[in-house]
């Protein structure tokens, strides 16, 4: 059986075919981790795990002097890393997230749900607490961060049930989430942020003042980015149901300029609030996206 390259395995076209989020997240994360050659259980906690041969450059603090004196071998002690991170995932399930372009492998919501599942799986595999908050005009699901064994299956099962509809009320979701976050947490926010770019900075500031760390992942379809249509269409707003009839080819330049401006403002608000920002199109490889973010986090540590 030919080996499937990681890039293909983690493509949304393949992942979106897996309906079971647990399997999906496991496939993505373990494939990703093995691809990155990263140890999952290594750190500088208090719980001893094993010895390993001293390598020049290791912190001398971890050198077991007694063993060196007794046996003449230079060995470093390795401990389980102690984590105390709480991760909250905010997932926008409004009607605008239900859009799937003709060339896109999945809808924006499905893409966001895959990322959410992967993040949750990754957090749980590192022993962190993880919670999920799904919203549109109301809170569709609220699972506070927890470290018990049933939290991950609950989150993944919830993702399968939810269908996107309604108008996004980001402020409500933010308030609701804040109530559940008792301690410093990492807030991962997955949305297209349509119409929220001006309030985004304020919202992120509130999170930051509460001591939370943030990651904003803006998910858009290629159709939204490029407006590839040529014919005259009657566009219907998915959330407000307002209509406009226009020939896309004639307004494409203006549209793209406005879209770039929208993305730029969103990114700038994130940067202003020292929040990580990722722009994802539904055709982008999820593996690369996660890897890019993990590297970024590692670099910041």
């Amino acid at each position, binding site marked *: 059986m030919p080996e499937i390259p990681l890039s293909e395995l983690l493509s949304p076209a393949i992942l979106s075919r897996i309906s079971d989020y647990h399997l999906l997240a496991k496939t993505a994360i373990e494939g990703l981790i093995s691809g990155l050659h990263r140890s999952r259980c290594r750190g500088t906690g208090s719980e001893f795990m094993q010895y390993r041969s001293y390598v020049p450059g290791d912190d001398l603090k971890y050198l077991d002097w007694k063993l060196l004196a007794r046996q003449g071998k230079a060995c470093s002690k390795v401990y389980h890393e102690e984590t105390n991170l709480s991760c909250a995932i905010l997932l926008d399930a409004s009607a605008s997230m239900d859009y799937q372009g003709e060339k896109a492998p999945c809808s924006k919501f499905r893409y966001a749900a895959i990322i959410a599942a992967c993040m949750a799986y990754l957090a749980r595999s590192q022993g962190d607490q993880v919670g999920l908050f799904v919203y549109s005009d109301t809170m569709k699901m609220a699972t506070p961060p927890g470290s018990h064994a049933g939290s991950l299956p609950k989150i993944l099962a919830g993702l399968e049930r939810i269908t996107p509809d309604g108008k996004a009320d980001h402020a409500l979701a933010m308030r609701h989430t804040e109530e559940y976050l008792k301690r410093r947490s990492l807030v991962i926010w997955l949305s297209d942020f349509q119409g929220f770019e001006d309030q985004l900075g304020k919202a992120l500031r509130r999170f930051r003042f509460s001591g939370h760390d943030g990651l904003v992942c803006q998910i858009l379809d290629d159709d939204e980015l490029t407006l590839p249509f040529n014919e005259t269409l009657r566009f219907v707003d998915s959330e407000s149901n307002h209509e406009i009839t226009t020939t896309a080819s*004639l307004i494409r330049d203006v549209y793209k300029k406005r879209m770039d401006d929208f993305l730029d403002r969103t990114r700038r608000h994130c940067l202003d609030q020292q929040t990580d920002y990722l722009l994802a199109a539904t055709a982008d490889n999820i593996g690369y996206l996660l890897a890019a973010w993990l590297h970024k986090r590692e670099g910041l540590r």
Partner: protein
Amino acid sequence: MLSFTYPFFLWGLLALAAPLLLHLLNRKRSRRHVFPSIRFLQISQLPREGRKQLRDWILLLCRMIIFACLVITLARPYWRPKPEAPPSSDLKQAFFLLDASASMQTDGSIEQGKQLIKGALEELSGWQYGGAVYAMQTLAIAPFQNDLEPLRELIENWKPGYTVSNPENALAAALSAFSAEAGRKKLYIISDFQRSDWNLKKIHLPEDISLELLPVTHEMRDNCAVFEVTVMPLGNQQQRILVNCRNYSAVPQQRLLTVRLGTETQTREITLPPTKTQRIAFVFQSLEAQGSQGTATLSSDSFVRDDYFCFWAGNPQPVNVLLILPDESSESSDMAAFFTQKALEAEQDGIPGLFRVQRLGVGALFAADLNSCQTIFLLGASERLSSNDLQRLKEFMLSGGSIFHCPGPAPNLSWHALQGQGFCDIAFNGMVGEASRHSALGLGWLAPDSMLQDIFPPENSSDLFLFNIRKHARLQPGSQEKVLLRTLAGLPVLLEREHGKGHFYSFALAFDLSWSDFPLSQSFLPLLRELCAALVPADHGRKKLTCGEPLPKITRLDGSEILPEKPVDTAQPGLARIGEYLIEINLNPAESSPDTIKTGDLLRLLQSGTTTAGMPLLPASTDSRPHWKLWALAMAVFILIEALLCQQADRKT
């Protein structure tokens, strides 16, 4: 006023609605597309799209015009001058056409017709009345009058004849009778509308004449008819009479068939199967050599005129055969004429010879009427004929006559003369004789696909190949000559060539004992008689006419016309004799047919200008001008415009 020769083609214009309907049904309403957010969209300006749509509309219009032009061209439009404004006078005219064909004799038809006219007249108070009785021609006419009496008199004298009807002449007479000033014109036709009578070709009713068809529905359900009698001589003065009867009804019919010949009468009860023809045979003793008058009569039914058939019995009129000989009497030509005449005039089993032979010198040929004979023998005379004589002989042959040619004392000149006038392409290559070959000459081959094969079947052909040939001409046939007989050496002896309806036969030997023993052989008589008999038309000597047909013109050998002893009225069945020709006049079998044309169809056809024969009528008016070429030109122009528009559109794309 624009009119059309084929107006039904105009239905094709309905197809023009198809692209419009398709356009309306498939009108591209902009597709609905749900989009995450329309905040960044704006209404676009559509100047280019609009221009494209306009061009599409022009293209569609152009194509529709092309199609319309095509349809109108096929409908053959013509311009008919607008009819003058209807006269303001209050003159109203009604014309009645009364069918007097034989079929109207059927029980109650005339009475029914009179009732129909009576009903029609009740609605025509204050009109001018006219009428005509017609059969093959217009028999009687009552011009338009305010007084009804002339028309009543015409109707009273309305009696069916024995002929078929030809309504075309009567319609023409009726149309010409109408006054141009008449404000209202009505034409009534009272007929049984037999289909065979209504194969019109030239009639087109003007639009201002209102046509009323009053059909007489007669009952011919039990009708049987005698429609043909054939007489065959049996020898021993006996004749076989074959009577063909037809039952037109849908059930078997029992009839008494009586055949009378001279004073002898035979009657037989017959059962005729439905819609079938049956042949009944009688044998009579022939009483008169010149011919006996006979009748075949069926017991009467609703239509009695076709139950009677008169015929001539007796030996057939002999066929005139002309022997053309050189003016100077010679032993050779006399011998040839003697043998030929004996062979053709010989009696067989008591039946007189089919042929009557007359001799004529070359010098007297110019005065002879060649149409009075059927076959001509050129016995050594062809080289003496003038070019005028040869030309006349050729015309005789082209009109159906047959010429047999035998060489004379100068065979080279003989075929040369015939070749020069186009009788044949036979080349004379000298003579072949016993002395030159030192061996006996004789026939050795007979064309297997010719009628000679029937005369001389293989088991009976020995005599044909037994006689001696002392000398014969060596002939080279042309491409159009067919060789019927060859010698043992394979040289042609008898050649045949067709000329129009006639035939030309050329022998390579003369009917002279110095040439061969052929005239003495048993094959000579059957060969000559059967060849000549096969060329005689089937109706020779007996002319069968239908009632109303004119008498044929019959001439003597000198060209003078033979007149009947007493005047012959062909309008009624009967027998006549013109010289030796026997004339039979009987009812046209078409009158017996119960097949009628639907009056609705006829009305529509007469008014639309299409004939019942399916042939379109040419516009009646001489001022009518065909316009289809203009429409075809318009179509070509629009095709050009369409092509330019398409090319322009492609370039922009």
